[in-house]
């Protein structure tokens, strides 16, 4: 137990040391790098997956493709893919972003598809009956109703990308994984641990932020735990 407390003390010291908070390899720079990889990959993945998922969900054509793709890509080892792309393209932003996009597409695609597909048919028919054109049905009715599942997919995708972006450091690309790998290489366990704390903290913080966004964006009628009041009186 003494060893554990000693270690925690050195962990606190690591965080208290001002030189870990400045310069090109300080914590803020690494956090920003990490967020940059994450945001870029999730953004591009969303640009591809949300329209595609919405189209497939709206028309109902190609649903098997979404399910198959989502399952198949889950089996793909991200570390192997990243290293493969780095060896083929050289070290740079492109291979990391590509690997992370591949990771982020399945949850976004599956979430959007399931969300649009599961909108109550009566609601969609009512929208058509009111004279809405297909695009308006999708934009004004299906997508807002699908929002909880789309944002659920976005959260899952973001979490996986943040988690996986840690291995970018393994191929010399920075991000928060750097502290873990440099710590291990120099046998500096407090630094490794500090890296792990930062990674877990960032993942938790982003997850909370997205949960908050989800609560703000989703229509009150679609929130869980809503008590639907009868229309009496």
């Amino acid at each position, binding site marked *: 137990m003494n060893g554990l407390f000693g270690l925690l003390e050195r962990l606190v010291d690591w965080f208290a040391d001002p030189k870990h908070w400045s310069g090109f390899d300080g914590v803020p720079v690494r956090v920003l790098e990490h967020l940059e990889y994450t945001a870029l990959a999730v953004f591009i993945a969303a640009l591809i997956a949300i329209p595609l998922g919405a189209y497939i969900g709206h028309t109902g054509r190609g649903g098997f493709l979404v399910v198959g793709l989502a399952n198949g890509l889950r089996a793909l080892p991200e*570390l192997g893919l990243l290293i493969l792309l780095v060896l083929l393209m050289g070290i740079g932003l492109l291979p990391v972003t590509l690997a992370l996009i591949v990771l982020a597409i399945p949850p976004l695609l599956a979430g959007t598809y399931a969300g649009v597909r599961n909108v109550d048919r009566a609601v969609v028919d009512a929208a058509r009956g009111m004279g809405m054109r297909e695009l308006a049905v999708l934009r004004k009715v299906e997508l807002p109703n699908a929002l909880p599942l789309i944002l659920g997919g976005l959260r899952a995708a973001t979490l996986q990308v943040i*988690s996986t972006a840690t291995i970018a450091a393994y191929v010399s690309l920075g991000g928060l994984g750097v502290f873990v790998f440099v710590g291990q290489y120099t046998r500096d366990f407090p630094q490794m641990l500090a890296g792990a704390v930062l990674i877990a903290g960032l993942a938790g913080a982003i997850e909370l932020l997205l949960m908050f966004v989800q609560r703000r964006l989703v229509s009150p009628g679609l929130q869980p735990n809503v008590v639907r009041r009868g229309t009496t009186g």
Partner: protein
Amino acid sequence: MNWFLNHIDLIVEKTGQHLVISLLPVLFGLIISLPLGWLAGRNPIARAVLIPVSALLYTIPSLAMFVFLPLILGTQIIDPVNVIVALTIYTVSLLVRAIADALSVVDASILAAATAMGYRPARRFLAVELPLAVPVLISNLRVATVSNISLATVGSVIGIEGLGKLFSEGFQRQNLDEIVTGVVLVVVLALIIDLVLQLVGRAITPWTRTAVKS
């Protein structure tokens, strides 16, 4: 392909290690999450604790988990036990919620019928509720297993054995063949085990297909 043929022994060894570190967690996870899921399914207080804690544990990235666990378990950083425990935690987080949800949607009239037939709670759980939850359980087990097989490779970046070693060593040697072999093996392994689980699921739930027969 040449690399693959010249290293069959190595590949068999790594595949064996990989199966141990990725499938043991599925077994342990299932054993742990059944009682926890059952508890969360029937007790609102247990649910209010277990579900958020599972969600929280699930957000911890694997690399961070591999660093935290030696601290708690007193293991070395390259000990495969860390990966086994980490993947067990992920499996439990996924399954507890799934089991709780699956159990809570079992039709109340079915439960009442079982009770009226004289089933005591423990036996009713094993003979009635659990079998009805099997389809949901299997589909979540498949997700957990496939992601475990893929996630277990991450441990190799801090020196843990398994098929991930083909990635870390392939990177050091700049050996494209070795990495491609590793990727293909992991995907094939995941798809085979996924298929096995799917078939097991079908075999143990014959009643889900009777309606389709004509």
